[in-house]
């Protein structure tokens, strides 16, 4: 049972969260300008590293905020918050 650090609610059991896969995949600025292959990359292709992975989680049973996390997919070790600056503002519950 991983302990996921929600930036707002503090560390909670993984069961409270919804997993969102790879972080930082932006919606294309102009999807219509993309080729079918490029659009397929956005729709279906995500990194799948063994090791450190920047990924998205949403605190479904808590504050319902999405946030990014870096986790080692080989060990489940959580290495800290990812992209959002605000995430440093953790609280303890």
């Amino acid at each position: 049972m991983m302990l996921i650090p929600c930036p707002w609610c503090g560390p909670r059991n993984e069961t409270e969260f919804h997993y969102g896969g790879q972080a930082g995949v932006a919606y294309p600025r102009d999807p219509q300008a993309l080729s079918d292959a490029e659009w397929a990359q956005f729709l279906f292709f995500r990194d799948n590293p063994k090791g450190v992975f920047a990924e998205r989680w949403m605190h479904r049973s808590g504050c319902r905020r999405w946030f990014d996390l870096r986790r080692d997919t080989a060990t489940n070790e959580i290495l800290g918050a990812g992209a959002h600056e605000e995430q440093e503002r953790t609280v303890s519950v």
Partner: protein
Amino acid sequence: MAPRTPGADLPDHPDRLWRSADPKSSYDVVIVGGGGHGLATAYYLAVNHGITNIAVLERGWLAGGNMARNTTIIRSNYLWDESAGLYEHALKLWEGLEEELDYPLLFSQRGVLNLAHSLQEVRDGVRRVGANRLNGVDAEWLDTDQVAEACPILNTSPDLRYPVLGATWQPRAGIAKHDHVAWGFARALDQLGVDLVEGCEVTGFETAGDRVIGVETSRGPIRAGRVALAAAGHTSVLADTLGLRLPLQSHPLQALVSELLEPVHPTVVMSNAVHVYVSQAHKGELVLGAGIDAYNSYGQRGSFHTIERELAAAVELFPMFARAHVLRTWAGVVDVTPDASAVMGPTPFEGLYVNCGWGTGGFKATPGVGWCFAHTIANDEPHPLNAPFGLERFTTGALIDEHGAAGVAH
């Protein structure tokens, strides 16, 4: 010595299995991944296509990945034509495999029930049975009473939180003994002169332009006329070294086993809605699988709450399992695609072929994969059965969406 406990023991293995080979400097075909798929592919390359200068490279011990960790369910009752074609081909091969490999695979066609717990699952089940029958796959729709007859220990009371409203039934489906399957192929390959190289991790590829000409391994470089990837959950990691992106995510998939029990469970029961599937294996142990854990992981372990939820479902469906005991839990790493169907075919790299994304369906497909992947490698083009499973489908949108069949699907 006194008689053995009935059923509690397995038939003996042959005296000779395989020699663990040292790698040569080059092969016609190098197969990366010594699991069921890699072994079956090598086997059909040899027997169907006459190619025997093959190395199967396994980073750990042979067939020690998902092949050693799955719950051994074999069935072909998939919804879409493409899937039914491939899995049914596999099932037909299963039906002759024991004889072909001359190995006791304990292939037991005891039938599989896929339970429906909601009106929508009933519709989906009837739809799938119809599609199966028209595709030549044996399938029946059973109402609740017929389900109770097929599996008397199942709780078919209407008072269940999610009562059993019916089930699909594939009589030819069943289970086999996973290690025996892998070892049967390995022994045959050993006799065919194929090199099975254990403890040999592939770390990268040797390329010449867009052509893959060999692999880098923990035991030195190996040249290859053709390279075939069959590394399941680790395929992404390997493809990454070539900059080849695959639509895969690797997740833990857990299973557990009970102590040995006198036979009570005559068939295989699967339930998508409550996420559990159960059979009683040859020695008498109950073998249970759960849903896939949601997050990416290569850790070969999952989360305990998945197990707890699975057991809650199991005890609801099978009240008599209350005092059975969990003896051992474990997890495999399954590679899942966006449409829950596999990827098998050539790649943008000449001489490189990929077989991955089997998710929870890998074991049951084993001989079918071997047959088709060997064809793909030998002819440099897909077999008609795996042609729909190429990477192009993600661009065109011609997906083979088996989420319904694969939801928990095993």
